[in-house]
């Protein structure tokens, strides 16, 4: 991880120079043209320091790429982006949101990575009535039992990819017994919960559910507990824990004996380049893959690689796509972002097309209906990638269930 971090800093310094140059150039041009309306201010926050800094940076980079492509312009107004570091600490996130809204006077908000930050911000965003886009926070209830009027999600719910994946695992992968191991927090519970529900409805059986603390440093005790007699192990990790789990899974001789499947984050491109052959063959589900074969993604991935010298991760794509909702909403109100109700309407009704992840529409709860991709890690041209092996189209957060019925049931928990 270390060398890549360093590289990220270099990139960011370069990027800043480019942005400044662009902004200066753009400002000069507009000033010359017209004495127009002041810029639309967009407040954006993700963790840029601490353990989740890389994921936060990916999200930001995707957004910056989109803004650069569109010339920092929408609805006939310039766009001014104000970025804050929420450090992955909910209280800091709230303070930064207050700063962006109360001091900088932003018209719209975007960002947040962690569920805890997402939940912490929601009441404040509601009280301020500022439209906000959550590109990543995946806590089911944010668009289910604890909906917020002013927040839309352009990402996914934790259980969303897992509902169809559970059925796929039973019907296509022909798995009958699965042991799960996941990080012990909301994202883990909801993802595993979604998988368990559909997998067991099909007739499969979850034989074991292990939960690892977020601070875990050694998987040995957990790997020792996993039964060797199951058809597959389902794993949910990300960042450092993903790297370590997949490596130790091989070291403990489980790779090759028990198929490893899991949530898309476990092999997402934010960690995949740092993995080795131990990752090959892992099958996961998510609404995106860097290797997705469609024109929009080929264009996006190429631009992203050229700009940041990295493969785009699902985090990178999250706000590239989420940003399209932001721009579409500003276009919809013709730049009149001061009318917040209209802006919110514009956001909820936006229908951006040509998205790297494929077609997306928001449901009436403010959550995307989108394709879920089953991906298998392969080495292509010497590089690991998440090759898409199945596309499960138009998946809603409620899967095949009736939303009203679905919402009467409790949230997935441990």
């Amino acid at each position, binding site marked *: 991880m270390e060398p890549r971090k360093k590289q990220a800093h270099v990139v960011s310094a370069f990027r800043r120079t480019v942005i400044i140059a662009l902004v200066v150039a753009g400002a000069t041009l507009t000033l010359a043209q017209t004495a127009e309306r002041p810029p639309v201010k967009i407040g954006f926050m993700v963790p840029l*320091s601490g353990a989740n800094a890389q994921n936060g940076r990916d999200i930001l980079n995707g957004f910056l790429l989109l803004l650069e492509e569109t010339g920092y312009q929408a609805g006939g107004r310039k766009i001014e982006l104000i970025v804050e*570091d929420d450090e992955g600490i909910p209280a800091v996130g709230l303070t*930064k949101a207050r700063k962006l809204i109360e001091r900088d006077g932003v018209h719209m908000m975007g960002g947040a990575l962690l569920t*805890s930050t997402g*939940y*912490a911000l929601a009441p404040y965003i509601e009280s301020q009535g500022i439209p906000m886009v959550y590109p990543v926070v995946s806590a089911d209830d944010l668009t289910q039992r604890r909906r917020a009027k002013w927040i839309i999600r352009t990402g996914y719910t934790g259980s969303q990819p897992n509902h169809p994946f559970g059925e796929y695992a039973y019907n296509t992968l022909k798995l009958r017994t699965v042991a799960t191991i996941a990080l012990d*927090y909301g994202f883990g519970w909801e993802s595993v919960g979604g998988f368990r529900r559909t997998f067991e409805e099909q007739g499969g059986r979850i034989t074991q559910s292990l939960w690892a603390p977020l601070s875990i440093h050694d998987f040995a005790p957990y790997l020792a507990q996993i039964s060797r007699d199951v058809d597959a192990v389902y794993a949910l990790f990300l960042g450092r824990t993903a790297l370590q789990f997949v490596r130790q899974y091989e070291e403990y001789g489980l790779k090759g004996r028990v198929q490893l499947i899991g949530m898309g984050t476990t092999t997402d491109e934010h960690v995949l380049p740092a993995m080795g052959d131990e990752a090959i063959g892992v099958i996961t589900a998510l609404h995106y893959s860097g290797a997705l074969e469609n024109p929009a993604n080929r264009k996006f991935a190429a631009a992203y690689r050229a700009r940041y010298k990295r493969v785009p991760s699902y985090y990178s794509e999250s706000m590239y796509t989420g940003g399209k909702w932001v721009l579409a909403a500003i276009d919809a109100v013709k730049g009149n972002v001061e009318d917040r109700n209209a802006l919110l309407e514009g956001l909820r009704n936006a229908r951006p097309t040509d998205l790297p992840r494929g077609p997306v529409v928001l449901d009436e709860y403010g959550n995307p209906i989108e394709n879920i991709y089953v991906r298998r890690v392969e080495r292509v041209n010497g590089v690991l990638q998440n090759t898409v092996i199945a596309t499960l189209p138009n998946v809603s957060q409620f899967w095949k269930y009736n939303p009203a019925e679905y919402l009467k049931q409790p949230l997935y928990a441990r």
Partner: protein
Amino acid sequence: MDAANLPSNVLRGWRRPVFYALAVLLVVGPPFLSTYWVGLLTQMVILAILAMSLDILLGYTGLPSLGHAAFFGVAAYAVAVLATRYQLGFWTCVLGGIMIGTLCSAAIGLIVSHVRDVYFLMITLAIGMVLWGLSNRWIPMTGGDNGLAGIPRLETHAGLPFAGPIPFYYVTLLVFAVSAGIMALLVRSPFGLTLRGVRESESRMKSLGFNTWLHCYLSFVISGVFASVAGVMWAYYNGFVSPTYLDLTASSELFLMVTLGGPATLVGPVIGAGAIVLLKNVISAYTARWLLILGIVYIVAILGAPQGLWNLGRSKRT
């Protein structure tokens, strides 16, 4: 005579005008500030209560706690649980928060009041980690890593006729003034002198006939009371709680507030809390390298004012 009996001649020289200027700013400033700055000021004032409470322990009694944020966090969690899971009324939540935080410090004080110096540091660190772990893992009660959201606004929960950042600020300021007044009286009291005695020479205190264990214990509990008060206010201010309230980062930042501001002065920690909140929020708005700059600022401050900002120009303690 009178001046000499004050802990450290609080208001001598440049400190007097600075003190009054700060007091005036805190009292009359907010109506002239934007809501964002009122919010930051509210944070500073709440964390100032917390920093002063640690000062009782660290500065006056000489017991370096690296787990002090735990009581702050426990009280905040108590408010959150009582208000959201049990939907209890305002005073039940406030008193419940303070009581649970205090009981927690009273129980832990029994364990830690026997040890000193680096052992005290380590055992408080360990206990702080345990409570942090509990907030993370006692999921049915605490919500785990997600924390608990949905704490009602203080103004509506208390049934106040007014609401908004400025009323909340003044409620906080009132709590701060009362807490600071009590703590200031405490450190000037005969009991307060015994705490400084323990810090200076515990064996001499024993040979004079003091049961120093009891004095350390009381100091620990009192400082737990005020940490709890701050925790209750923090829960209402943010409207949610999360494990980060009581993690090691929180405790060490708190430690820094006291040492940077000037231990054993009470005013110093207030300034330390203000300075750190200000620096974090202002610097991070201008550069992504804010952590680096903050680190440099701390190092310069510690080198330039090893006794803390409020002790600048005073002779060194040995």
